[in-house]
């Protein structure tokens, strides 16, 4: 009997587990193995060289610059995106003028939620190409708008100046992601009983009090999830960088990120490919991501607010 049950479970799990091992686990394990080799990627000769690749990583200036940029992203991207997401979700659902004691969104809130979500439906590649055009210093909409507002856009272009390039790509990422978090937080808000807000309103709480004392604590679970998601995006960030500034060295590496540097080391047509070294970068990034995810869950853990 017991035996039959195992067979039953295994028959269900075998295919997905097999696919997972083949396409996720096995490449990861292989990357770890290759990170200890001098494999170019093309040779049929592979030599194990111990920790040489990792030692080289420690003294690789570009790697550290990339890591620093990832660190900036890790702080800025979640904070800005979540702050905007919360603000928009709050305004759309609760922050409007009150009719009696019923909390509603701003006028036209349905329209806004569609508008905010729209960028999220487009692929990152489309977004990045679109924004490259928008940032184009020769007549792009962003520098033109800046000029119209009396702000001088940088002479070398927003993507051509080391001072602005990273912020320009972060802006694109925020624009892309914020709609998803508006929807996520809206769902979270829907789960909060309306009478809580109404009671607070009757007690004379203003919008700020209501947001910081009621909305945010009750949404904390969603915010925590958002932090982890956005943290992972910040640690990757390959696609936008590779399309918007494919050669970060042209802007003093100011937009180089670890994932893109890995790609350069393995697949650039200009530098001899070093799959072994690139794998070592990938392994370093893997453990970094793992550590940060664990840390974030620990740091953001809070007492759960019990309702009802």
């Amino acid at each position: 009997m017991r035996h039959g049950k195992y067979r039953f479970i295994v028959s269900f799990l075998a295919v997905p587990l097999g696919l997972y091992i083949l396409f996720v686990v096995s490449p990861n394990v292989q990357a770890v193995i290759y990170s200890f080799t001098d494999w170019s990627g093309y040779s049929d000769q592979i030599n194990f060289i111990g920790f040489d690749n990792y030692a080289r990583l420690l003294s690789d200036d570009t790697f550290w610059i990339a890591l620093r940029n990832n660190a900036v992203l890790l702080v800025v991207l979640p904070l800005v995106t979540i702050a905007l997401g919360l603000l928009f979700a709050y305004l759309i659902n609760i922050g409007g003028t009150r009719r009696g004691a019923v909390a509603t969104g701003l006028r036209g809130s349905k329209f806004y939620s569609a508008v905010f979500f729209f960028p999220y439906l487009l692929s990152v590649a489309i977004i990045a190409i679109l924004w490259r055009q928008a940032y184009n210093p020769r007549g792009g909409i962003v520098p033109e708008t800046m000029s119209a507002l009396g702000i001088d856009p940088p002479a070398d272009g927003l993507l051509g100046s080391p001072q602005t390039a990273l912020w320009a790509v972060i802006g694109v990422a925020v624009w892309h992601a914020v709609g998803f978090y508006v929807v996520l937080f809206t769902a979270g808000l829907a789960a909060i009983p309306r009478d809580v807000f109404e009671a607070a309103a009757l007690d004379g709480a203003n919008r700020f009090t209501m947001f910081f004392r009621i909305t945010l604590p009750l949404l904390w679970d969603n915010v925590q999830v958002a932090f982890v998601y956005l943290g992972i995006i910040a640690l990757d960030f390959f696609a936008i960088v590779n399309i918007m500034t494919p050669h970060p060295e042209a802007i003093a590496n100011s937009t180089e990120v670890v994932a893109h540097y890995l790609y350069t080391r393995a697949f650039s047509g200009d530098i001899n490919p070093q799959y072994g070294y690139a794998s070592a970068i990938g392994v370093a990034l893997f453990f970094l991501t793992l550590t940060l995810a664990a840390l974030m869950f620990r740091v953001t853990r809070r007492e759960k607010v019990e309702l009802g």
Partner: protein
Amino acid sequence: MVDVDRRVFLRQALAAGALFLPVSGMMAGCATAGGGGNEQAKGDVSAKNPLGVDSSAALEVVTFAGGLKTTFPEVQAAYKKAHSGADLSVKGMVNINSLQPRFASADPPDLVDDSGAQKIPLGTLVGGKQLADLGPLLDAPSVDDPNVKVRDTLVDGTVEVGSYNGTFHALNYVLFVYGMWYSRSLFDKHDWEMPEQWDDFLALCEEMKAAGLAPVGYAGQNAAQYVTTTLLTMAAKAGGPDVLVKIDNLEPGAWEQPAVGDAAAAIEQLATKGYLLPGAAALEHTEAQTEWVKGKVGVYPNASWVENEMKSATPKGFDMVMSPVPSLSSDDAMPTETLFASPGESFIVPAKADNVRGGMEFLRYMLAKDSAMAFTESTGSLTVVEAANAAVKPKTTGLESTQAALKAAGKNTVTYIHNLWYGDMHKACTQAMADLLTGRKSAEEYVKACQAAADKTAADDSIEKYERK
């Protein structure tokens, strides 16, 4: 009850997985090692078959479908005529480095045009001893005249650029000529002429600026190295071709040669005097070149591929032409006609290909005068076949001016190879060039940064070193 059972199951599944994973990883790792000593296809050597090709052996050729887009129909016909039994396959590909698994498993095609942004850097293949020695091709009789070796039909520099420490591994088929590109009609309209001296060029820049043009165009995002070529051409003209040889050979202080410093100071003036296309630092090459063909830029330092590249965006009557890079002073070591001409589009025959001789034979037919002329006519690019370059009738203004400039230069052509040999150094120098053009670095700092990158490469034992004479 059920809960406990599930946990037991999961624990056992995990244990099974832990056993299984390393095995699967190692097995996959083994997949890269393969291929033993494979048998080379071989036929009888004769006057008609000097390379000893097996006329019945299949031949697989991969061409680059990105820029030039030709699959050499004339060459295919000639090869089939000579080797009627051969099963010939010629296919175009854009991402050449997607051949990676075939190289790693020792099952590569017989001939590859390793070109484009996704090319396989040759240093890797040379270092892994994965390329056949193409020496027999150089010493084989040419298709046009059995008394002349292939080697003697090629443009100067072809053997040098394709050789790695004395072994010829890559036939660079296309001759790219660098210079100052401009619209002849625009220059005629303003009654301008392309100056031969740098000081006169700066004066012209001032005039172009006054006429509302950006005098000089470049693309900072991915093509600042075109200006590096301009700089080093000026340096070579001022100090002689040895200036570039020293840089390629990583000689101590090579970048600190006075000629390089003077050329860097000249380029720096373009930045400090505001002669560069505003916003160019943020543009990619097609974007910046579009500004140029739209008539907003006076001169664009570029190579002869630009005419074909911009064909669809160039308005009728633009008439793009090229001139040599100006000389730094009138007592330069080389004449003003001196050109930077560099063979590109590397055709390689993998050492572990099944039909190495067939790959070389296909190249031999590509190097026939008629094949090369047909190539130039269909792509607008000159080749390394000297006789074809002289004989071809240009259909476009760009090709016409390139051909004329090449003829005027004669033996006075220069080139560098370090960009192919030392990718990291080249990348660092391109970064320094981007900094120089945006004013983030002075000419002295540019030279210093390049020298530091060269010293770093020279000191790094893990980088294979090459030498030219």
